[in-house]
């Protein structure tokens, strides 16, 4: 079996229509152009006009993307694409478009009817981005590699420590040094915290990693008291991250009066958090669909079988711990700088449970599920709050307004039980069902 560099397409006789490169990318170019076109016509059109134009354009784009995709059996190169099917590609284009347009919509002075909580949404979206990154890494370890770990918050704390040492103490607010440093520290400490996994499984591993959580909490407390006292670390103000002056020529970066470009406010943070989250999630998705990621799944399912395929099970487990912890530590740095201060009680066991809720509701062992789960986790309280204040049939129930956070938790807990019972693959599973229904419906209308 000699390795062939680029396999010949299978079933060339299928005579499928092959689009040119321009045709392939045209839908995406059009989709990318829409916000700019709409942005230049701010004067006369109101929000609903813009929204309807956008929807129509996107529908046309999705239709074209569907039409210009080769049918029949895929070549292996096509099969390896991240977005294989026409519907995958349409959804990806929609998501990209949404991510680019969202901050502009949220920053506009648009106010929806009935006091819908628009203003607070920007902060929630940014938190979702940070949590999605951490939850995806958590899911990679717990769901995908099968290594049950409770040390998640320990690595958020590690991120804050590295952020404090490298970002605040050494460089006075340079998050850009702290991020790679946290990745390296997270990978090393993560591999060490994964050592019990070589001997323990399931519940025992869970307890061992939980022990690691308390060790790290001790380190965090000692570090705080040694250098910062009880007030905690301040990541804002003079320690806020900023864009270096040699990058000020970039479009959209207009320095403030004092000649600095400080990353502050939801809009600017969005453009920092969104690319980092998207890239780190893409990284994890790529790991999962290549050699080492397949090995993770193999070790999870049957470790004896995996070792007889030539997989070094111990090494594979440690890699899973190192990768997950590196990304969680980075999300810890981002969270510290975004939230602005971290004190003694910033990290607790409750947060581990929150992440567990996120990955169970979103969908176990699905990276996509982590995104859905964290969106659910942060938006649910917002919607609940809105319903409590605005909806006439909910507004008058005193019980709901008296115990808001308890009822939040109760709803989340109830949903976890419901999802575990009726839809074990969570929101990601629901989404997959919807997508396959949608593409079947499309295929029926395009025989």
């Amino acid at each position, binding site marked *: 079996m000699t390795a062939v560099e680029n396999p010949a397409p299978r079933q060339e006789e299928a005579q499928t229509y092959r689009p040119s490169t321009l045709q392939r990318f045209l839908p995406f170019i059009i989709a990318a152009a829409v916000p700019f076109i709409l942005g230049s016509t701010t004067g006369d059109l109101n929000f609903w006009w813009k929204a309807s134009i956008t929807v129509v354009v996107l529908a046309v784009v999705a239709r074209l993307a569907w039409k210009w995709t080769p049918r029949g059996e895929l070549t292996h*190169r096509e099969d390896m694409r991240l977005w294989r099917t026409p519907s995958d590609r349409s959804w990806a284009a929609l998501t990209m478009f949404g991510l680019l347009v969202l901050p502009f919509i949220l920053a506009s002075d648009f106010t929806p009817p009935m006091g819908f909580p628009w203003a607070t949404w920007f902060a929630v979206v940014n938190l979702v981005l940070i949590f999605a990154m951490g939850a995806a890494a958590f899911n990679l370890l717990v769901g995908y590699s099968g290594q049950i770990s409770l040390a998640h918050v320990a690595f958020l704390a590690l991120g804050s420590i590295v952020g404090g040492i490298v970002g605040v103490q050494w460089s006075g607010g340079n998050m850009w040094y702290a991020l790679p440093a946290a990745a390296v520290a997270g990978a090393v400490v993560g591999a060490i915290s994964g050592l019990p996994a070589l001997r323990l499984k399931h519940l025992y591993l869970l307890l061992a990693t939980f022990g690691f959580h308390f060790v790290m909490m001790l380190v965090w407390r000692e570090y705080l008291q040694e250098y910062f006292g009880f007030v905690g670390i301040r990541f804002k103000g003079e320690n806020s991250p900023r864009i270096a002056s040699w990058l000020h020529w970039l479009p959209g970066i207009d320095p403030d009066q004092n000649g600095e470009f400080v990353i502050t406010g939801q809009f600017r943070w969005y453009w920092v958090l969104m690319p980092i989250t998207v890239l780190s999630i893409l990284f994890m998705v790529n790991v999962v669909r290549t050699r080492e990621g397949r090995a993770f799944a193999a070790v999870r399912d049957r470790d004896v079988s995996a070792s007889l395929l030539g997989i070094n099970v111990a090494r594979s487990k440690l890699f899973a711990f190192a990768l997950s912890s590196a990304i969680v530590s980075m999300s810890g740095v981002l969270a510290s700088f975004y939230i602005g201060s971290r004190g003694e009680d910033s990290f607790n066991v409750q947060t581990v449970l929150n992440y567990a809720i996120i990955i169970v509701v979103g969908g176990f062992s699905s990276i996509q599920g982590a995104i859905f789960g964290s969106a659910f986790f942060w938006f649910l309280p917002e919607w609940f709050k809105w319903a409590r204040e605005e909806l006439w049939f909910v507004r008058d129930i005193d019980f709901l307004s008296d115990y808001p956070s308890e009822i939040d938790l109760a709803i989340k807990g109830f949903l976890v039980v419901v999802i575990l019972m009726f839809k074990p693959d969570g929101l990601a599973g629901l989404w997959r069902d919807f997508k396959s229904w949608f593409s079947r419906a499309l295929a029926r209308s395009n025989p």
Partner: protein
Amino acid sequence: MSDAILTFDDVTVQFGGVRACDSISGRVERGSLFALIGPNGAGKTTLVNTISGVYKPLPGAQVQFHPQGEPTEDLLAYRPFQIARLGVARTFQNLGLFMGENVLTNLLLGRYIHEHTRLIEGGLFTRRAVKRELAARQAIERVVDLLDLGAFRRDSVGDLPYGVQKRIEFGRVLAMEPELLMLDEPMAGMSVDEKQDMIRYIYAAQDELDMTVFLIEHDMGVVMSIADHVMVLDFGQKIAEGTPAEMQQDERVIAAYLGTEMVEN
């Protein structure tokens, strides 16, 4: 010295008070089809597990692997994943497949030892990683064609019928391109047609892919028709060894395995 690919000597495996294998010795000739037979509980799978490194035998045992053109390796010094990398692959009696993953992923896991994409390369999806991934998929295609698995590429393994699952597992070890292929009851629970297909596939593996086959099998008809050399185990002991024809005449074998009514005749 004739050309042996595997020699094992004085292999004794003990679980508590039970001797699953009691000082078993033997040799497998390069390019041959070696069959290991015996009633249930005879210690066949234990022997294969010892050779592939899952069980450790009592001291004094020797298991040596002689790869083509390479120095002899003492398999007892290695861990299972290292033995797999040396070129000794095996299947499982009750399937070692990853049921939640699709067929392609299962087969690609067979290429794990031949691909060399690192974690970070894979995560960045570099050009080199893509090239290696394509090469692995190309190697898989040969196995897919050989075993007629083309229709199932993206199906979840757990949803497929048992006969197909057996074939997928066989395909996965073929993708590993081992020198020595150990098959633990590849035909258990199959229909006659499926068994004939499997025999065809084993021949194809032996001839086209140049592998030595070490086969555990219960079906005497199959063993007698395809094996070059047969070893018979009973209660952890080797009771006979020779060509299939010799084994059919051997009284101990007949008594232990083929049934007593043949002795009465």
